[in-house]
């Protein structure tokens, strides 16, 4: 267990070292900067806003592993536009106020020209606002609240994860037809939970089903007894959950312990790999994901091998959807900069808005694209359940279906999202 810690410290040290070597360790005075820069073109500096503590501490660090891998790959190929990429990170503590401050520090003190990393939508919004003020591009790698690509969208922000609406669209109709019409919702009482539950409700009712009740669960609930009693009393066919982070881990354990995982049927909106890995024995029901490390697609095995080589002593043995999203977002950003031939923010934004990625390149079943109207990645949505015949101890999922971006798109998002015109974005270049 101690080893995990060392690796995290290592990460921090690495980032510190990178920032000092990169010559932007400004705490040690501006003079160092000049000395380092004299040796080559100025590096491109990225600020990685990843949680290391709080509700999403684990996921934040897994995000960071994917992001770093993409940066390392690019540097190994000689960098970007002939320049090295350096990065710095700090704990955003799953706290919005900390996110604001870290974003200010990265932009104004560390001279980062792009920010990457998010799990919690509140933190993502706080960072977005600061980034928008300066015109700095921000990649929301893993916050999947539908509002991120709806009312809280931004010209400088790009959202890379599938959201609650996408997952509901991929799962609900099928379940109403095959399992039953009486549904109960178990919803984390915060914005992601609410918007996801609303999306599920619309899908259920659209398919002819009925919502019996929506039980709201306060964040950080660990004891689900009261909810499980109510569910047993109401006897629904399906329970659809929108419970996140460590809460879902606790719920999974309690449901598994009481053996309630057979009937009713459970649909869990999205499961993040770091949460699943923390309690693999209690995985149950049907759930969504955007990627799995044993997808039978070209490139996946190779990617997993490279990821493992870079994270030998990490707390998680294989990459999951969170690390994958971090990696993909960063890789596509770096490629967009290469294509734009410039680090000018608006030119990068335009490249990203026209982004199309082939299924092979994406290591998913369908081609993916960036929706220019909402800045959300439209991608394959997988449904999975617990694997009854695992090939090894990491083989926890059995992928049961995949839905293309066309069928999973959140059509309502574009109407809610208003992007500012390009000329109102402050210019940023590095």
């Amino acid at each position, binding site marked *: 267990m101690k080893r995990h810690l060392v690796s995290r410290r290592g990460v921090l040290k690495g980032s510190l070292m990178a920032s000092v070597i990169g010559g932007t360790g400004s705490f040690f005075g501006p003079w160092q900067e000049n000395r380092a820069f004299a040796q080559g073109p100025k590096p491109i500096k990225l600020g990685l806003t990843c949680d290391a503590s709080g509700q999403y501490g684990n996921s934040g660090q897994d995000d960071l592993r994917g992001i770093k891998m993409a940066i390392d790959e690019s540097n190994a190929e000689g960098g970007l536009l002939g320049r090295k990429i350096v990065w710095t990170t700090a704990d955003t503590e799953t706290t*919005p*106020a900390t996110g604001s*401050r870290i974003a200010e520090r990265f932009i*104004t*003190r560390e001279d980062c020209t792009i920010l990457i990393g998010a799990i919690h939508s*509140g933190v993502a*919004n706080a960072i977005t*606002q600061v980034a928008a003020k300066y015109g700095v591009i921000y990649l929301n790698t893993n916050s999947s609240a539908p509002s991120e690509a709806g009312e809280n969208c931004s010209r400088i922000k790009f959202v890379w994860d599938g959201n609650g609406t996408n997952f509901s669209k991929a799962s609900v109709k099928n379940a109403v037809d095959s399992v039953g019409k009486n549904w109960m919702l178990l919803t984390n009482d915060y914005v992601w939970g609410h918007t996801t539950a609303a999306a599920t409700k619309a899908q259920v009712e659209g398919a002819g089903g009925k919502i019996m009740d929506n039980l709201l669960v306060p*964040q950080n609930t660990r004891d689900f007894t009261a909810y499980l009693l109510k569910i047993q009393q109401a006897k629904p066919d399906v329970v659809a959950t929108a419970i996140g982070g460590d809460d879902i881990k606790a719920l999974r354990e309690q449901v598994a312990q009481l053996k309630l995982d057979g009937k009713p049927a459970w649909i869990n909106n999205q499961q993040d790999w770091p949460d699943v890995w923390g309690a693999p024995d209690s995985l149950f029901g049907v759930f969504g994901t955007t990627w799995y490390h044993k997808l039978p697609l070209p490139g996946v095995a190779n990617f997993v091998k490279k990821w493992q080589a870079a994270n030998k002593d990490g707390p998680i043995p294989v990459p999951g959807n969170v690390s994958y999203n971090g990696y993909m977002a960063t890789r596509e950003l770096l490629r967009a900069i290469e294509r734009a031939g410039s680090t000018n923010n608006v030119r990068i934004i335009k490249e990203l808005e026209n982004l199309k990625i082939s299924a092979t390149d994406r290591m998913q079943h369908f081609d993916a694209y960036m929706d220019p109207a909402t800045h959300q990645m439209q991608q394959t949505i997988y449904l999975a359940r617990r694997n009854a015949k695992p090939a090894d101890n990491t083989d926890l999922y059995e992928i049961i279906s995949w839905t293309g971006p066309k069928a999973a798109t959140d059509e309502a998002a574009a109407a809610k999202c208003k992007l500012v015109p390009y000329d109102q974005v402050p210019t940023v270049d590095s």
Partner: protein
Amino acid sequence: MIAAPTNSPDAARLVTPAMLVLWLVLATVPLWIARVGLYPYLGIEILIWSLYALAFNLVLGTAGLPSFGHGAYFGIGAYAFGLCQFDVVANLWICLAAAAVAAGLAGALVALFISHRRGIYYAFMTIAFGQIFWTLAIKSHRLTGGEDGLLKIRRLPADFGFVSFDLNDNVAFYYFVLIVFAIGIAGLWRLVHSPYGRVIAAIRQSEIRAAHLGYNVWLHKASIFALSAAVSGFAGGLFAMAQLAAFPDVMSLHQSGYVVMMTLVGGGLVSFWGPVVGVFLFLTARDVIGALTNAWMLYFGLLFMAIVLFRPEGIAGAVSAALHQHSLGALRERGNSAMRLLFGGGR
């Protein structure tokens, strides 16, 4: 100095030499802050939190009431500022006033319930109300945006009728906050040294004696709490401007605990300036040490324990002893007695 004898010449002044020096030093901050590896936004946060901690210290240090849920009023001010801007009128002065009034009303409401309580019952009532406000802020999605926060709050221009300043730039906003902070400090100084402030200090020494002298103890305890909440809310309004948003996290028990720590570490129990010292130390250390290690709270916790055990007069107390060549022992005794009074107001 709160506990200083009131015949000190500074007590009667509107602006003391110490204030002037502090303002002048602070005014030069944007010129050199980048050179020492910090950034103007950090300066803004320090000033705002200093004002908040000074307001908090009206209750903790001046009145000797243990309030552990003060973040609620800071947060309410931030939300009120944003909602005023969106739904009432986008005017800086009106919205800052709204922030103070809303937090002051919330504080007055709470004061109704708690002002006849003492010691740990008082302390825990403030915690309970803090938790209630915090939960309400998270749950009122429609009003506050839940934990997504109330977003897109603007830094309204400082409009004086004949001239208007844009505050979007961090340096401009820093100077605006500095001016507000300067006025706030002068105001709080006068308040603490006014006849009203002296009654509050007397109540801290002994509620019974103050009551015998004919003062309405309940009313004084309630009013100082509401006043402190109002100023905290005002600072919260500034914080919403700094962050461009209002989030529920500042209302949590954790963050309320931070302001207690900052005030005590700085020496708020014996010195008017204690909260400012504590905030400066806490926020700067968090930024600098926090970049090196995630476990910086460990070191701050150890420092805090050491201060409670060995230096109850706090940092400001130790410095002021050195400056005035008071014996440190006497000052420490004053710190001791101040602490004793916090939970023993009636003895």
